[in-house]
């Protein structure tokens, strides 16, 4: 049983690390801010989630489980908010109906 759990840990943490690697690659290679954010949040959500999932069987105390899951949950919350903030900064909110768009139209390049 413990061997199966160890195998599960290794597989899940490795998968998580793979997501972090892919996310980092995307952050470096993707062409604009929004797609880079996409790559970054994928690494945070799925990568960290898989790492946490893989570590759960290695922790014996329920408090440890809650701690690990709380870390993931808080990272999700912070990542989602920061993603929104950064996306909002590069893409201004749509103007109210009927006003002409006189902004410089600065598209992310």
């Amino acid at each position: 049983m413990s061997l199966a759990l160890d195998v599960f840990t290794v597989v899940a943490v490795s998968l998580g690390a793979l997501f972090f690697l892919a996310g980092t690659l995307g952050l470096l290679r993707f062409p604009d801010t929004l797609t880079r954010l996409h790559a970054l949040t994928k690494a945070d959500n799925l990568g960290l989630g898989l790492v946490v999932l893989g570590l759960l069987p290695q922790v014996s105390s329920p408090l440890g489980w809650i701690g690990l899951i709380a870390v993931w949950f808080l990272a999700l919350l912070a990542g989602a908010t920061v993603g929104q903030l950064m996306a909002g900064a590069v893409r201004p909110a749509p103007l109210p109906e009927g006003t002409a768009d006189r902004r410089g139209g600065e598209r992310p390049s």
Partner: protein
Amino acid sequence: MSVGPLVDIGLALLILSLAVWIIATRATYRAAEGFVAYGLLAALVWVRLGSVDVALTEAALGSGLTGLLLLRAAARLPADDPAETSRPSPGLRLLVGVLSALVAAGLAAVVLLLPEPAPSLAPAAMASLPETGLGNPVTGVLLAYRAVDTLGESVVLVLALAGLWSLAADGAWGGRPASLRSAPAGNALRFLAQVLPPFGILVAIHIFWIGADYPGGKFQAATILAAMWVLVLVAGLRQPPPVTSRRMRWLVVFGSLAFLAIGLAGIGLADAFLAYPDGWAKPLILVIEATLTLSIAVILGLLLAGPPADDRSEPGS
């Protein structure tokens, strides 16, 4: 084969190259961003060295809070800032380079010439620890053996806040700190500012409480509390109090005053300034830590909130 040395070598290379990049980069804002990453790497180095207390402080204060202050300063500098456009003369640069190399060589010599085993006060610190009722030797050093240093630190923070407030224009005095005022916050930020503080306060109390026996303590807890407060301020859910608010000013000096009062009482009740009477060390340290946590949190939040600005003027950057 253990991966420990590989991780250490990788960390060392990473932190050194990041340090070189921070010095070499011409843009102030980027250098400040690099400094934040540098602080997080330094925190990892402290973890590898087994100093989790220092790592927590480095990540929270060194990287997070100082990084934010630097970013704000960089954002306020004019675009044609002379530091970015002009370069010092070659002679000056050579001099600075030679002096830096000398300091680095001196430090390296000191580290390499340490006697084996290196001199250490750790056994002495551990031997007297039971008398303080604490389990974490770092807290023992900070609040029992070298309490006078910690008292000085808490007063320095109050002075730093006074220095920051003295930057306010005459007309703005009495107003609210304005540096966190910015564009109206979006829904996402407001949501985070409503959801996160209960967790943050819980984590801060936990870090404060376990500081007696495990890595943690007032500075780390206060930084988390300050972060929660600043988040609420940035999201616009609350306004910072005016700098003339009596209640806030009492909160700012409360920790240092309580520390000082307990220290002075030590002259009469124990045998020296900042000495604790027998059996009273743990409860007194707890009172000092609790009041200091509150005061430091308020001071750190106010440092980030910046000097007061005239309410009619444009919001700060």
